[in-house]
């Protein structure tokens, strides 16, 4: 068997001057009070808060704190989550009064020893922290969230669409929407108008309209140009203030209006 000889020059032995490995990050565990809103509309029970004492580290997320309750203290808490990394959009809830993703919010960044979690506003409650997304999803579908282009079918002679980086930048950030609904929950119009399309849907209407492969602009503009549509936005900016993905729905809505008002082509 041939001996494998490694060149010693490539991997020098650590000398005495090599600094010692960094000490492990120290974080004294502390205890916080987690207040969870409990309600079950199917039983017509009034909402109440259950309080739990939870040990947390510097890196503990609000979702982990809630899961600690489920694992150790009260398994009946209803909460929706999946990816735990701000990608699936399942874990939106009101945390200390503001809509946020529970998996993307560290307890330590809230600067409070009392954390209150409630279901997101403007969404029907299923139970406890889990809310119903039916309206958001059906509105999203109504925006025709796909490329409309006769020539997009794969057929003989069809070529790929060439997009420049500039073309891509026009819609890229809006395609990062994870449908978490935080924007709809923060929107002041959504608070009172149950038929409003909402920032999530309007931003998606813009995302496809601004894509130069798409030819569905006319139809989409017609869909948003209705009485509970785009004109109900007053540019309060709260949607963009809470969006965890940098989608900036408020910008998308004003740019979409630009098309309708004839300032953009």
């Amino acid at each position, binding site marked *: 068997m041939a001996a494998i000889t490694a060149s010693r020059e490539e991997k020098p032995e650590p000398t005495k001057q090599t600094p010692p490995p960094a000490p492990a990050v120290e974080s004294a565990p502390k205890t916080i009070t987690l207040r969870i809103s409990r309600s079950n509309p199917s039983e017509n029970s009034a909402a109440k808060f259950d309080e739990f004492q939870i040990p947390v580290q510097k890196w503990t997320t609000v979702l982990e704190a809630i899961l600690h309750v489920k694992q150790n203290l009260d398994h009946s808490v209803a909460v929706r989550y999946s990816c735990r990394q701000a990608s699936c959009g399942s874990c939106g809830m009101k945390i200390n009064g503001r809509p946020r993703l529970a998996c993307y919010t560290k307890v330590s960044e809230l600067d409070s020893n009392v954390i209150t979690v409630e279901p997101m506003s403007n969404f029907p409650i299923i139970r406890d922290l889990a809310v119903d997304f039916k309206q958001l999803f059906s509105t999203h579908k109504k925006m025709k969230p796909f490329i409309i282009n006769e020539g997009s079918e794969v057929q003989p002679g069809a070529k790929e669409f060439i997009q420049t980086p500039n073309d891509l930048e026009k819609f890229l950030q809006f395609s990062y929407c994870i449908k978490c609904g935080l924007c709809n929950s923060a929107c002041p119009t959504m*608070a009172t108008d149950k038929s409003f399309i909402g920032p999530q849907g309007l931003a998606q209407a813009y995302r496809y309209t601004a894509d130069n492969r798409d030819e569905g602009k006319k139809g989409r503009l017609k869909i948003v140009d209705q009485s509970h549509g785009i004109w109900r936005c007053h540019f309060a900016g709260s949607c963009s203030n809470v969006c965890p993905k940098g989608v900036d729905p408020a910008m998308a809505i004003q740019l979409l209006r630009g098309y309708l008002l004839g300032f953009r082509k």
Partner: protein
Amino acid sequence: MAERVANREGIKGMANPTRYGLERVAYWLQRISGLGLLAYLIGHIYETSTILNGKIAWNNMLSLTETPGGHLVLVLVIGMCVFHTGNGIRLMISEGGKGVGKPGQPEYPYRASSLNSKQRLCIWVSIALAALAMMYGAGVLFGD
């Protein structure tokens, strides 16, 4: 199917100017000042229409407005007018798609470019102009 609580924030949530930064405060001020100006317009039409009932009725109405309370209302109207106009011009431009930033690759920590410093400056300038106009108005109305 079980009845589900709609859980909408309602007027209380809509009219809460806290939580979402300066732009939400501006939204609230625009609404309050718009409604305030509308109320003033209606009151003003009623006030000036008393002239149809003759000189005495007109003078009675005038004496009612020339009180410290009446002057305070006018100072507020001046402030509402100036803020509503200044911020209204910002909104008309922005809601046409101008000055709300350019789409691009979002970078952590994802500051929305529609909530940019120019927008904020316009809001602060509208507030400052309203405050200055109120001070000037108060000087004229309450000054000897």
